């Protein structure tokens, strides 16, 4: 589903963010992206969205080289990728329902689709009763669930999450994780960048560790830190 072939990226100011990264992520996998601050996790995700271009190497998504996509096709690429961020990025003057509906409306989905999909997805994230609230009337955990709902309402093939639990307490982090797992079980590929050690250790999912832009570990049932005895 996602294939990085010897990908390197250096930002214009000369900061090396990724170097010689080769990774293959299958459809339906759940992958943690870990590493110290500045190790290149966000850059990895931005490359997948084609917000940045690699200097070297190839990135294939669903079998297609995304560098060869013409500019006007990029929005269609992004329709297949849902995104969740640490800071939620909800529209403060729209209600929960409107926030989720917005994601469908702006890609031209008919009103009937919007009317049927939005309540369904809000039910899935456990906010069926709170559709009329504004984001500031919700807890952080609830806001992040709205963001997940918005990212998933179009049923993307891939869900990218950049430190989705970074601003949440353990209980809320739990519920977001549970939600992402549930989404993963529908066959959606999930890539999640995180600093949350406990979470990674408990989940025992695939872990890709970056260090100064290099993949230093790619483990099928990994933990956050390097387990003793491995090195």
């Amino acid at each position: 589903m996602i294939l990085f072939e010897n990908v390197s990226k250096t930002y214009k100011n000369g900061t090396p963010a990724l170097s010689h990264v080769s990774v293959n992520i299958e459809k339906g996998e759940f992958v943690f992206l870990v590493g110290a601050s500045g190790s290149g996790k966000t850059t990895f995700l931005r490359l997948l969205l084609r917000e940045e271009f690699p200097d070297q190497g190839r990135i294939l998504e669903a079998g297609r080289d995304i560098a060869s996509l013409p500019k006007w096709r990029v929005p269609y690429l992004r329709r297949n990728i849902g995104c969740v961020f640490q800071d939620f990025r909800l529209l403060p003057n729209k209600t929960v329902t409107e926030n989720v509906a917005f994601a469908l409306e702006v890609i031209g989905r008919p009103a009937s689709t919007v009317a049927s999909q939005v309540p369904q997805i809000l039910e899935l994230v456990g906010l069926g009763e709170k559709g009329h609230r504004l984001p500031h009337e919700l807890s952080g955990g609830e806001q992040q669930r709205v963001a997940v709902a918005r990212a998933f309402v179009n049923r993307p093939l891939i869900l990218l999450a950049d430190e989705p639990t970074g601003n949440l307490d353990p209980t809320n982090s739990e519920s977001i994780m549970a939600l992402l797992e549930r989404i993963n079980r529908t066959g959606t590929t999930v890539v999640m960048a995180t600093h949350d050690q406990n979470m990674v250790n408990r989940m025992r999912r695939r872990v890709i560790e970056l260090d100064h832009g290099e993949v230093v570990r790619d483990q099928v049932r990994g933990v956050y830190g390097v387990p003793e005895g491995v090195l």
Partner: protein
Amino acid sequence: MRNYLRYALRETLTNLWRNRMMTIAAVLTVAVSLSLVGSALLLRQSAAQASAQWQLGTRVTVWMAPTATSGEISSVHTQLRQLPIVKSCVFQSQYKDYLQSKSILPASEWTLLKPGDVPSSFICTPTVPNDAFTIQATFQHEPGVYMVTAPEQQIRQMNHTIRIVQVVFIVLAIVLMVSATVLILNTIRMAIFSRRREVSVMKLVGATNWFIRIPYITEGFVQGLLGSAVAMGAVWALKTWYPLHNEFSIGSSALWGTNIVVLLVGVLVGSVGSGIAIRRFLDV
């Protein structure tokens, strides 16, 4: 599609309303600028009209001195007849002129006039209106000729004045149009800025570039359109309340033509303003 039209319209109107002060400033600047363009065009058309009418009726009058001998008169007459640039000539005898002056002068003065005092004259039509000058130059110093008059001078003077007025109007209009473009650009920049969250979410979930851009393009378009609507009203009012008389008056087709130009320029100003704003501030 219908959903999108509704969305784009709603966004456009909201943006216009949110930035209404800037919108009003932009619309008024467009309006003033285009009113100048419109007036310059009207002026030009009515001047052209007047010149054409005057030239159609251009008469060169060769006035013979009252004392001219009949030999001198017939010599001038033959020369006029032989000159190819003179189309036709009518001879006004002294007596005819004398009778004509009766209708011009007050009775008390006319009674003092004798046929011998009035000059005889040739009223000539040149083949081409522009030749009026040549005829004037040729016959001015012929023996027996008192003077030669042609309306050409008058036309030239008027056209000269009108050309200056026109240049002033057009220069002012261009300066104002540039400010209008900048104002429109700025309102749209503000609209984009106040919507930057929405725009970033739209990009993220895969809205197409045109979907994102069109409300802002429409915004500039509407501002240009409103401005030219006001200017069209001003041009129309100018023509209605200051009707130009006689040969200056222009038909309603000229008014329509002017208004169409005003409309097109207004829409152009709006589109250029929003186009630049989108290129600079909405890099999708």
